[in-house]
């Protein structure tokens, strides 16, 4: 009984990873709350602000979220070490941009080299900014239809009802047009040629 209670308060690493992967609100909150203090004190010691620590902590969790989705390999270290290493790496980059020179960090903990994850992350960040732009360009109702169909997995029938289309064929056609526009915007950004 007691161990069960303890698990509730501090989830095991596996459960934590599973929760992060699923984007579970409760887990995200636990993770943020438990690791933010450490990240904050690291950033503050290294000439950063609380505001910057807050951003870094969120970014580090997103890096982990992406890593967990990219491969099923899981983590080779603890969540704590991973988040700290990513924060450290991101902060180092930011500091060297600011100071344009040598940066000496006040280290707090052991860290891993997470160069790959972080550079992957900034590539991804660009990719998703591209998608965000394309979706913004689409405007409504197209953007919403795309979200409802491809992400929320509403059926064509639901889409027809929600947007007041007379029948599912109209809705389908509308969805098709929206998707083709989105495809065009996305491939424009990437400079790929498409045939359909």
């Amino acid at each position: 009984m007691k161990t069960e209670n303890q698990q509730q308060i501090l989830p095991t690493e596996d459960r934590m990873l599973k929760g992060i992967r699923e984007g579970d609100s409760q887990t995200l909150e636990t993770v943020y709350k438990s690791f933010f203090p450490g990240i904050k004190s690291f950033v503050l010691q290294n000439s950063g602000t609380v505001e910057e620590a807050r951003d870094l902590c969120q970014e580090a969790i997103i890096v982990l979220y992406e890593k967990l989705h990219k491969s099923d390999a899981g983590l080779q270290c603890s969540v704590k070490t991973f988040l700290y290493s990513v924060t450290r790496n991101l902060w180092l980059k930011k500091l060297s941009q600011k100071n344009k020179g040598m940066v000496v960090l006040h280290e707090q903990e052991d860290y891993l080299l997470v160069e790959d994850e972080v550079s992957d992350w900034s590539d991804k960040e660009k990719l998703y900014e591209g998608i965000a732009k394309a979706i913004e360009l689409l405007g409504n109702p197209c953007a919403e239809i795309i979200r409802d169909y491809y992400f929320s997995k509403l059926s064509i029938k639901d889409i027809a009802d929600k947007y007041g289309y007379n029948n599912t064929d109209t809705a389908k056609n509308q969805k098709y047009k929206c998707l083709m526009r989105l495809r065009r915007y996305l491939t424009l950004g990437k400079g790929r040629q498409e045939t359909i």
Partner: protein
Amino acid sequence: MDKENLLDEIERYLFGEMEPAEIAAFEEQLKKDEDLLKFTESHAEMLGEIDFYFSRKVVREKLFRIAADQEVPVITLVPRANEPKPKKIFYTSLWVAAATALLISGVSVSLFIYLNGQMKNTAYKALRRDVEYIRSSQNKIISGFSLADKKESKHVNQFGGTGFAIGEEGFVVTSYHVIKGGDSIFVETQAGNRYKTTLVKSYPECDLAILQITDSSFKTWNRIPYSIRKTSAKLGEKVFTLGYPKDEIVYGEGSISSQSGFNGDTLSYQVSIPVNPGNSGGPLLDEKGNVIGIISGKQTESDGTAFAIRSGKLLQTIEELNSDSTRKPIRVQKYGSTSGMPRTGQIGKVQDFVLNVKVFN
């Protein structure tokens, strides 16, 4: 085959919706047609990216909210409103398996709030009344909990709100969140007539929905006694509302307390008026008995702080709807007919056109 059908087929293949025989035939085609193969691959990749983009965005927003919550030292005197229940969606398919497993926080309330800026600590509460939910939770308290109960309440879910008549042909205005997720929507008049309606169009972004009565027993509205006001309400203007927080019509009065709604939403007014779940979608009327807003929600932390969508937005919505569709335009009453009447007289005239909206899913 035209492109639309081809795409449809590709997606059915990717989503795992094909029969085994179809899969075999499609894969045969993929082997032969390299362009098709390439396209299918790139399409799968794109859909994977789009899907992951949205799930990642949800996680980002959650983290942002968590971080923002941590900012303020928490001194809670008033219970915080519940976040909309996350809706779990499971699915299996090729590209999805690689892409993501996801959670969506209920798009219902949050969509509206999301469009009006970030969700803050102070929560905005949409006022739809979950009748069946309330009843079933009472039942559970009374009769104890059994599995059978649970099953039943899942199937017959009823919720509702308020609506009001516009145009002679049986059109009804209500809030989007009232009818959201409903399969069949009925309206009931004060006199007890019940009519089936269909959704003409919903506007999640401004939380409005327009229904039309399709019941053969319905002929036409008698002269609707209110107009929809074009001009904005003035600060401090006296207002009243009629609605169905319970099965009997309920009157409430108050005044316009701010020109903007929740989190500075300029499409809405803040109104100091008592409202309860079920009032959503009801008309907010001025002293002359004309509609100046549609009740949409209230602030959870303070009693008597309600929000109403501006009537101007409704007029604009109706105009757009009229210009987009081939059906007979919805004609809004130009002049109200209760100006100068005492309040009780106004209520007597208006109440027949304020409807109890009942939604089943």
